[in-house]
């Protein structure tokens, strides 16, 4: 069993990890890095529970051979997301709106929310918010409260941007 060594920036910190290159990035994050916040749902790229940000783009970590992630790549998981201002705002609104029930999908869901609110010129219409979360499945909430939470967070964050401009 051959292994490769990679140095990544995970949640803002440099980590050097060794693993068999075809291991799923999800497994390297959970087992090698010990970051258990990222969940495995379907293991087929359908449910989005394993979503992380790879170089600022949301991806399903169950579909990536970890060897494909080059040195210097930036990875943000739920553990790093909650240290960011936008992540905290989203967390607060998820709680305030009752958007989390069993919670299993929530790490991946928050990653999708974070990718949306930190994207270039986010469109915060209901349709755009739903599309941004279309790759994440939740079997508890029916999505309405999640969309309300992201909408509220996006609203608050956009007002901050206006304050910055003045």
């Amino acid at each position, binding site marked *: 069993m051959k292994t490769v060594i990679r140095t990544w920036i995970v949640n803002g910190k440099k980590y050097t990890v060794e693993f068999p290159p075809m291991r799923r990035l999800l497994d390297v994050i959970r087992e090698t890095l010990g970051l258990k916040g990222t969940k495995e749902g379907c*293991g087929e*790229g359908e449910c989005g529970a394993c979503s992380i940000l790879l170089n600022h783009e949301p991806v399903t970590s169950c579909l990536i051979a970890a060897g494909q992630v080059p040195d210097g790549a930036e990875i943000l998981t739920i553990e790093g997301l909650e240290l960011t201002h936008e992540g905290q705002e989203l967390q607060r609104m998820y709680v305030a709106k009752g958007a989390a029930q069993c919670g299993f999908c929530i790490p991946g869901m928050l990653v999708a929310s974070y990718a949306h609110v930190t994207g270039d010129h986010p469109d915060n219409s209901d349709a755009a918010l739903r599309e941004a979360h279309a790759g994440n499945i939740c079997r508890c909430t029916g999505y309405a409260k999640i969309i309300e939470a992201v909408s509220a967070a996006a609203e608050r964050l956009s007002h901050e941007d206006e304050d910055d401009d003045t």
Partner: protein
Amino acid sequence: MSNLDDTEFLEPATLAEALRFMADESTRAVPLAGGTDLMVQWEAGVRPPPSRVLNLKSLPELAELRAEGDTLIIGAGITHAALRRSPLVRKHAPALADAAATVGGAQIQALGTIGGSIGNASPAGDMAPSLLVANARAEVASIHGSRTIPLTQFLVGYRKLDLAADELIIRFHLDALPAEYCEGWRKLGPRAAQAISKVMGSYRGKQEGGKVASFAVALGSVAPTAIRLREVEQWVVGRKLNADTLREAEERASAEVKPIADIRSTAEYRQWVSGRLVRGFLEHLASAG
């Protein structure tokens, strides 16, 4: 443990190096780009673990996206996310940008590539119809050189491509959308996102004075490969965009496709939808004038 732990992982830094791996049977490998199809099949045991995998993610030669005269050139490694947000694609092949935006969700779009979608050779691949109406050519390469083949010939059959064992898909060449032409994309699946298509298609056309001046239409999931509907195309050009033309074009499109029934839909429904899609495209063309 994973069933892929013993798979050898080849990491070429350049296309030339990748083609050398592919040239020799002792180093030939399964090319891996976004992994959205292959990783699932390997992990689930649907496909046996490969001896070797060739990582295409790091090849700069597959990452180009540029317009050259009247041609739009798209590297095989361009992701759906990059296609949907590229101003070049939006301008020169808008139906391709629209199609890319309906593949999976954001997470799949950030991983999957246009080369992987075509390379997977599924009739349900969402990239093919928009490429077909733009008269796309596939460029493939081996250590012996490269060749460029019309996509209509490259897509040989169900899961079959005109691609030799030592060749890799490098890029696609598309006719850029000419002035006064318009395009459209429609996809029918069980839900709006994360769904494999029942039927989907694209058109590129032009109208002049209420008549069809030019019309190309391609549908997917209605035959072993995505196809152009040549008979409908020829029949409709020169006709007035009126109710009679729309009705007959719809009937002719339904008759021209020969879909199968499978887990995603029935043959009858696919035929009916094919007609409705073609009618919708002509209505779109009529309103675009």
